[in-house]
Each structure stands twice: as C-alpha cells, then as structure tokens.
C-alpha cells in the first residue's frame, strides 16, 4: 500500500509518518504531483495558519490537484478545514470539497480548544470499532459547522462537525496520530476503506 503525506511546509507532519510506521506502513512525505496521484491513500495534513497554508498550496499547484484525486484522501486538522468552502481565519477561500463554512470559537470558551474531547454520532466505516464517545486529541481555534457531510460531531461551545466525508474525501478535526490507540485504529480504518 502506497501512502503519500502531502508535504507543503505545514508544521509537524512527521508525527503522522511515525503513526503509520507504528502500524507497520511506510508513508512518504512528498509534494510531487505524480507520486501523490499514484498513491493508494493520500493524507492532507496541516498545522498553522489557514491563509499562509493556502498560499503554499497555490504556489505548488496542489490546490488544483487535491480536489481531483480519486483515491481515499484524509485531511487532518487544518487540512480538513482547507477542504471546506471558506474559513474565517484570514478570510480564506478553501478547496470547496466540503460544502461548509469554518468559523472561530467565541470567547465564551477558552481558545484554542486544547486537549481530549469526545466524538459522537459516528457515521462512517472510518470509525469501525470506535465507540461513540471515544476521546480524541484536538488543538484548534476554528471549527467546521454542523452540516449534512458531517460523519462525527464534538461539543465545544456548540456541536460542530469534527469529521466530514464526501465521496472519496474524508476530513477529521482531531489528530488521530496523537490520539492513543483509538486514533491509530482510525488511521488503520482509513487504510482498510
């Protein structure tokens, strides 16, 4: 199984590579369009600021490549947010794969949300063998609104879409690579799709 992790200069993405290694798979960090197109699975990570990340994607043409991919694609954290229509962060247009708006938490709660929160209303084989109410590790200030493409929700200030799916595209707000055994199970499920 060929796994490509899209490397566009966005933060600590080695952790994802290490998580696959713990599962027994070698994943490749790459920004090469051909390698990404030919991979069996594609991971679209992202840590940092949305406007800057989108510029990096555009500079390398990855913004046009990603929405055309046919194999299962998993966006993680900011990667998932960039797959949405638009984000309030630096008023950034996303890739528009998911028909949903990304908004900022208000000051009614501590921002960023940092730590372990539960995922519920699980609606995908991505969550095979995962219990409703399982804890995942999250670090984020912006969230995708509840929508028809949601395949899991988390409550922080409001119920929001903590995972999304449309066709071959999946996105998770939490960090499966940092979410203990349950997170690794989700990565394994993604490979089994």
């Amino acid at each position, binding site marked *: 199984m060929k796994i490509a992790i899209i490397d566009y200069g966005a*933060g600590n993405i080695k952790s994802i590579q*290490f998580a696959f*290694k713990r599962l027994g798979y070698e994943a490749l960090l790459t920004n090469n369009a051909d390698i990404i197109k030919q991979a069996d699975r594609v991971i679209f990570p992202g840590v*940092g600021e949305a406007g800057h990340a989108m510029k990096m994607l555009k500079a390398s043409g990855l913004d046009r490549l990603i929405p055309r991919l046919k194999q299962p694609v998993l966006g993680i954290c900011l990667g998932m947010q960039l797959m949405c229509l638009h984000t309030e962060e630096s008023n950034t247009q996303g890739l528009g794969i998911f028909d949903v708006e990304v908004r900022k938490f208000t000051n009614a709660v501590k*921002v960023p949300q940092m*730590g372990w929160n539960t995922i519920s209303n699980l609606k995908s084989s991505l969550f095979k063998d995962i219990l409703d109410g399982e804890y995942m590790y999250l670090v984020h200030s912006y969230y995708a609104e509840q929508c028809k493409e949601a395949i899991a929700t988390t409550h922080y200030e409001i119920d929001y879409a903590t995972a999304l799916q449309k066709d071959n595209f999946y996105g998770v707000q939490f*960090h499966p690579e*940092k979410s203990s055994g349950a997170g690794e199970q989700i990565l394994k499920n993604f490979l089994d799709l």
Partner: protein
Amino acid sequence: MLAKRIIPCLDIKNGRTVKGVNFVNLIDAGDPVELAKQYAIEGADELVFLDISATLEGRATTLEMVLRVAEQVNIPFTVGGGISSIEDVDTLLKHGADKISINSSAVKNPDLINELSNKFGSQCIVVAIDAKQIDNDWFVHLAGGTIPTEIRLFDWVKEVEQRGAGEILFTSMNHDGTKNGFANEALAKLSSIVNIPIIASGGAGTKQHFADTFIEGKADAALAASVFHFGEIPIKELKEELRNNNIEVRI
C-alpha cells in the same frame, strides 16, 4: 466535553531522565522513551520534557530523544528548557515535538512570543511562568525560580496572551515541592483574566489536590512529577477519583 488533562513532567539531562524516577516494570527507568510509553499506557494525556542539559552535546542528545519519543509514543508532548530562538523551535518541531515551552527567554525578549506564534502557530507555543507570592502580590521569577523580577504575574500573563501564546504553564514557587496542593486562588484568577488554557504546576501531593485545582483553581490541566514518578499516585486511580468527583477525564 473537553476533558481535564493529567500531565507528568520529566526532567531530562543529556537525553536521560534525571534521578528521582522509580518505576516498576521498566527495563531502563533512565530512558525517557520507556518512561513516556509507560505513562501513555497508564492514561497520561500529555507529557512535558524539561531539558536541563547544560552543554551543547547534552542538548544534541536530547534532540535524538525527542525523535525517539515522537516515533514511539502516541500522545502529544511538549519540550521545554533553554529554548531561546526560532531555530531552536524549528529544530524541535522537526524532530517531532508537538509543542514547545519557553520561560526565561520570553521574559528577556517578549517579542520572541510573537515571532514564534506567527511562524509556527500559537497552538504549539506554551509560555511557562514561575512566580512567587510576596506580600500578597505575585512576581515572575527566572532561571527555575531562582532570580526574582519586578514583573507582576497578572500583568505578564495578559501580555503573554496578547503576544500569541497558546497556553500557560504556571508554577507557583510557594507551592512547588511542598505537596500541600496547587496555588488555586492564583490559578482561578489567571483563568479569569486570560482566555487560553492554563496548566497548573507545583504542589501536587494527593489525588484531592488535583480535584481541587480543577474545581477551585479552574485549571485546564495539571502537571506533576514526583507523585507520578514514585508511583505515589497511579494515573489510572487518579482519573477514577476525579471522575467520582464529577470531573471530566479521559479514561
């Protein structure tokens, strides 16, 4: 609901845990990676590694350790100690650290907080603050709490938030090492004046102390060292006790 976090802290020198770790079932209790894996299994939510190496060689060894932790441990971890530049942070993140923590270097050069959060995102920038209560006022201390400053804790914490810190790690020098409980009054005040997560540190002695700091101190996370390292408070038992107190924890 977002769970309250339990964070064991490990002092690291030249890539090894410093004395004071007494763990059963470990092949090598001096190996931070072995220890980190054990803590992850027991239910720790995060780990903090504090590098107290005094030499460049020691720091290089710690970097190798960071890489091994990232490879083998499946929960997030923060690295602190002696970090004073963008290059230091870049290197640590590239070795797989999830967050970094700065302390004295932020006081000496507050712009560093802005520079780091702009470049790497505030989510990975923890500002650690050591403070001491003197005549009803709290003052920031440097170099592991040994050097006093004129800076007032509650002014500094606001500035740190405005400059882009993603989280505060607050250690009360009055409580650290006493095992008499956390500085809950100061912690609650910190939570009321800033809107970023606060990690309580200094004073953990009993399970009740953790419950108190989450309820009275309004802390988002609690950090401790010796009570975990010596097995005085097993993390599983601690979390069960917290849940019995209606505190949200990940079990």
